[in-house]
């Protein structure tokens, strides 16, 4: 048996549905959780067990059931300033670099790919808002996309529970950028207007960016892809990356052995740059030497 009480074929169908809709595969340590994850969906749709769910998916043509099923199998784990040293590096170095090279265009474009419920994009929005004078007169676009319509819906609303708001968010920023409501902690309108969220499958859809991305966050998403899908994903990230841009992956992720589209940044530890541009420029190094 692959998981709990359902038939193996039911698990196979569900894994196939997830992969065809999102490109993600289920690792063995997530398979056993399928039944638990799908329980609320089955309750909502009046379905008794996983075999019945699979039967309903195959026979009913219900778009809502399909969306709910796929959504429930995704891992939407995220929090504010996740691995906060990454944000320190971005604030202190990557943004400085981008500010210099884009000074003429005065444009900054950030894409949060796999943004889930939005905390990462709001983290960047707060960071940039607190550097308002530096970016005055610039067009700053922060775009968050995710394949989960439920997560994107939550991101747009910007409402977080007490548990979520405390994860990684410094208290000073919490009181500055969020209002306490009966339903939870709500991002202020001034914060929400700084980020655009949309439902997208990064393997298929072109992100709604008005310009090539200077910073791309794609953290803890590619690990759910098979190697061929991961290679495809890297190619898609590269296609929208500005020549001198940075890619940020999750702490346990790397480009090594995965793609030749990006290489580790020689300037900023833990960040990646487009491979074809990386050797041609060394602005931070040359600025420092000048």
């Amino acid at each position: 048996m692959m998981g709990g009480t359902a038939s193996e074929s039911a698990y196979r169908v569900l894994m196939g549905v997830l992969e065809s809709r999102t490109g993600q595969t289920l690792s063995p340590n997530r398979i056993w959780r399928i039944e638990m994850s799908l329980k609320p969906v089955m309750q909502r749709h009046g379905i008794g067990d996983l075999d019945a769910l699979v039967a309903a998916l195959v026979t009913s043509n219900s778009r809502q059931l399909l969306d709910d099923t796929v959504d429930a199998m995704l891992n939407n784990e995220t929090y504010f300033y996740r691995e906060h040293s990454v944000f320190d590096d971005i604030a202190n170095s990557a943004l400085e670099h981008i500010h210099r090279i884009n000074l003429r265009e005065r444009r900054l474009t950030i894409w949060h790919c796999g943004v889930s419920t939005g905390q990462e994009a709001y983290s960047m929005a707060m960071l940039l808002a607190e550097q308002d004078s530096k970016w005055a007169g610039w067009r700053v676009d922060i775009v968050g996309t995710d394949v989960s319509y439920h997560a994107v819906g939550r991101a747009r609303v910007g409402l977080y529970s007490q548990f979520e708001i405390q994860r990684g968010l410094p208290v000073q920023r919490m009181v500055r950028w969020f209002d306490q409501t009966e339903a939870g902690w709500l991002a202020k309108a001034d914060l929400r207007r700084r980020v655009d969220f949309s439902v997208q499958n990064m393997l298929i859809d072109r992100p709604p960016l008005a310009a090539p991305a200077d910073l791309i966050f794609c953290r803890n998403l590619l690990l759910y892809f098979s190697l061929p899908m991961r290679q495809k994903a890297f190619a898609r990230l590269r296609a929208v990356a500005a020549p001198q841009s940075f890619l940020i992956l999750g702490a346990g992720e790397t480009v090594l052995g995965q793609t030749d589209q990006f290489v580790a940044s020689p300037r900023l530890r833990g960040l990646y740059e487009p491979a074809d541009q990386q050797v041609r420029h060394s602005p931070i190094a040359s600025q420092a030497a000048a």
Partner: protein
Amino acid sequence: MSKSCLVVDDSKVIRKVARHILESMAFSVDEAADGQEALTFCRANRPDVILLDWNMPVMSGMEFLGAFNDLDFGRDDRPRVVFCTTENSIDHIRAAIEAGADEYVMKPFDRETLEGKLQLVGVA
């Protein structure tokens, strides 16, 4: 060298839970049951961080913080203060920040939340 934390809470259970989490993070832990006990401790010791309840008998967390701010720890050597309380309104949180708290944990909390807050104040 391990970091030290003073847990100030009138609830024995909360102190025990906090001690358990902190010791698993390699902190050395001292305890105080109210603000007065904490103040006496801080006159003789310098913990790296103080985990501070709000409502306590004898001396509240806010009263402690007022007196604590008058202690002389030398420049850049002031222990970090993290409120850890069921007083979860934004007015309480603002008041705590104004009084000099470095971070704020709203109860109930779990290990991950506490660890994250201790990282934010630079002691974990």
